[in-house]
């Protein structure tokens, strides 16, 4: 590309960027997103603290434990270490029989040493390969049935974790039993070798993360990349383009606008990030809520420990570059589409090429994710390497460690080549179509590009 063709892009960039920041749509969308980001953690902390308040109000103050098993070393008070809702609940190990205690509970319902109003009895038995947990409480007590159900689930979970440690094993044996289990599914090819994509399946819980990220990337590219079409249409329909073209080449106009749209997106993303940071600070300082820890816990509980475990510097960098290249490709298509429109009322018709290319890319990714086609038969490479689908799915999978780095690098190279070819077409046809009044089809653009190349060859 000749340098003189983009001379002056910086003036276009600066002007467009400032005007984009001043535009109502940018201001409104940024304010809404920032406000949402600002309130998200304080609201979560308020809801959480309200839940905690409710949990504190658990009606059970005392649990009498009758353990008839050999696992009588378990200290049930340890539950309170992990679960704050049992902070005020005491677990008392009883030596007398459960039935005696139950009778006492009934007898002393009205008058006795046991506070029957807030206490429950737990009898643990081992019977024919089954651990049985029986809970009893007075029907006249203030204990809620839901509290008993809740504590029964927590105790069962606690018991499941603790029983291995209390069967009299050596520490080494106990450690082996407690090690983490990882599952890996591998394919073999005809010669018996393992497939390289053996670990590329995504679980159902991971699918939702993929959708969130792919949708967010799609929305940012659609909103900001697509805005380039609008900017060009405004200049063309307002006839401003005629004035610009006496001072600057068309390619410089489109380059300036694409970069301005990109920077505006960055400004909005950073505004959201800053709002989120402020939101976290507010939740920590005002509501005493450890937002980052809670978020980590939430992600781990929902999607497992390994959701972003393969995050590496190289993966992050390649993901960012792929997203930027995707943005440049779609905003270049937007610029080209915008140049084919003469009147604002024809915008929808003229920008079909952009809408279709984005939707096709998005649906290819969607189809692959829903069909869980990743790692099965090579069809996933369509999504990885097609320049209209790779900017959404490849960064997502790279960050999640679902694809090896080399796939990201190949996708990046294909995107670079596509962008170069697209810019060559734009440079060839932009000057011709920018003055054209009426509708221009993709076929016309390709033909025009061929004619221009032929003219160039003849002039050499």
């Amino acid at each position, binding site marked *: 590309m000749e340098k003189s063709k983009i001379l002056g892009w910086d003036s276009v960039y600066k002007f467009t960027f400032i005007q984009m920041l001043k535009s109502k749509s940018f201001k409104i969308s940024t304010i809404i997103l920032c406000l949402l980001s600002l309130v998200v953690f304080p609201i979560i902390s308020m809801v959480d603290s309200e839940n905690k308040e409710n949990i504190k109000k658990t009606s059970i103050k005392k649990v009498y434990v009758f353990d008839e098993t050999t696992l009588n070393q378990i200290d049930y008070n340890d539950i309170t270490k992990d679960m704050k809702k049992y902070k005020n609940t005491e677990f008392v190990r009883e030596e007398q029989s459960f039935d005696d205690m139950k009778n006492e509970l009934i007898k002393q319902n009205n008058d006795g040493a046991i506070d029957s109003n807030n206490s429950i009895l737990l009898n643990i038995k081992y019977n024919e390969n089954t651990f049985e947990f029986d809970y009893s409480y007075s029907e006249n007590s203030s204990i809620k049935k839901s509290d008993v159900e809740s504590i029964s689930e927590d105790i069962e979970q606690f018991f499941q974790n603790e029983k291995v440690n209390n069967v009299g094993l050596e520490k080494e044996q106990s450690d082996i039993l407690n090690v983490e289990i990882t599952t890996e599914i591998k394919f073999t090819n005809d010669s018996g070798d393992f497939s390289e994509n053996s670990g590329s399946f995504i679980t159902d819980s991971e699918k939702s993360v993929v959708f969130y990220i792919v949708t967010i990337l799609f929305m940012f590219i659609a909103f900001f990349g697509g805005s380039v079409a609008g900017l060009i249409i405004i200049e063309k329909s*307002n006839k401003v383009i005629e*004035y610009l073209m*006496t001072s600057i080449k068309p390619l410089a106009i489109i380059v300036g606008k694409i970069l301005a749209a990109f920077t505006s997106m960055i400004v909005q993303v950073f505004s959201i990030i800053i709002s989120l940071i402020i939101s976290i600070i507010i939740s920590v300082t005002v509501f005493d809520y450890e937002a980052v820890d809670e978020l980590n816990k939430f992600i781990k509980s929902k999607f497992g420990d390994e959701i972003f475990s393969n995050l590496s510097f190289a993966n992050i960098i390649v993901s960012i570059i792929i997203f930027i290249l995707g943005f440049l490709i779609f905003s270049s298509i937007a610029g080209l589409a915008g140049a084919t429109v003469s009147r604002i009322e024809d915008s929808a018709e003229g920008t079909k090429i952009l809408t279709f290319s984005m939707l096709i890319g998005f649906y290819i990714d969607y189809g692959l994710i829903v069909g869980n086609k990743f790692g099965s038969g090579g069809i996933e490479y369509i999504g990885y390497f097609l320049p209209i689908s790779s900017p959404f799915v490849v960064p997502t999978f790279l960050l999640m460690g679902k694809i090896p780095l080399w796939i990201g690098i190949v996708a990046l190279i294909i995107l670079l080549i596509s962008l170069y070819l697209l810019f060559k077409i734009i440079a060839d046809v932009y*000057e011709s179509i920018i003055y054209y009044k009426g509708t221009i089809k993709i076929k016309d653009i390709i033909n025009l590009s061929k004619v221009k190349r032929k003219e160039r060859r003849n002039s050499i």
Partner: protein
Amino acid sequence: MSLEIKNLVKKYDEKIVLNNLNFKMDNPGVYAILGTNGAGKTTAIRIILGMLSHDEGEVLWNGKHLDVFKMNVGYLAEERGLYLKYSLIDQILYFAKLKRLPKDKAMEKIKYWAERLELNEYIFPEKIKGKRSKTIVADQLSKGNQQKVQFLIALISDPEFLVLDEPFSGLDPVNSDLFKSIVKDEIEKGKYLIMSSHQMPTIEEFCADITILNRGETVLTGNLNEIKKGYGRVNLFVKCQEDITKYIKEFNLKILSQTPDGYQFKISGDEEAKKFLNRITNENILIIKFELREPSLHEIFVEKVGSENGKI
């Protein structure tokens, strides 16, 4: 300095929209490109300014290819082109920056031209005490004022070559005179101007040389005075106190029009006019107006373009 347009040809597929346009400006002044709607004037202007590619010919400035990106060109297009929703000062500064004008110099020029074009109240709206100064956007201006802003943008870089496409269309008489005075100043400063207009009297006022286009073809080109001389003084305007119908019949004069302001005849030349004047003078008829002149540009234009299009 000189501007030379040599054999410019522009085709869209097989359709020729501009065929062999040739003209040359050796001295500063205004060159007029005239023609009916769709004659190819705007296409010619866009090619000269390098906005449109051409199939044949060349545009030369001082004997070299005219590159608008390397020289200082001002342009006022036929269709107004402003960002309707952006503030006036922002966009004027933007256009100035594209012309590589430093901001302080641009502000100086904006102030000068805003004063001259009476645009101060729109470009620099007064700040009301205690309130933020109100930004005025192009959409809030009348068409005439938008045109003045556009003219300001064309002049801001003090261009050596100015192209004005229909500069006076849609202007009221006061603003039209304001534009004319600025055009005259630019001519005096030694600028080269190309102007396209449908207002023939205005062209006659400014332009020494003209080209008339019709459907892309040049139907007449050259120095306006020479062209007129070529036609000779064949237009006679007469207004008398008494009825002169008898003498008109006697001389078998061809009446072009008859209005309360008198008659307009087409005559063969000076001799016929003299004889007619002597005849009515001898009859002691009071003559209010007796004017013998060359055809106006309007008449030449209508004759040339009309005959080409088969209307005359």
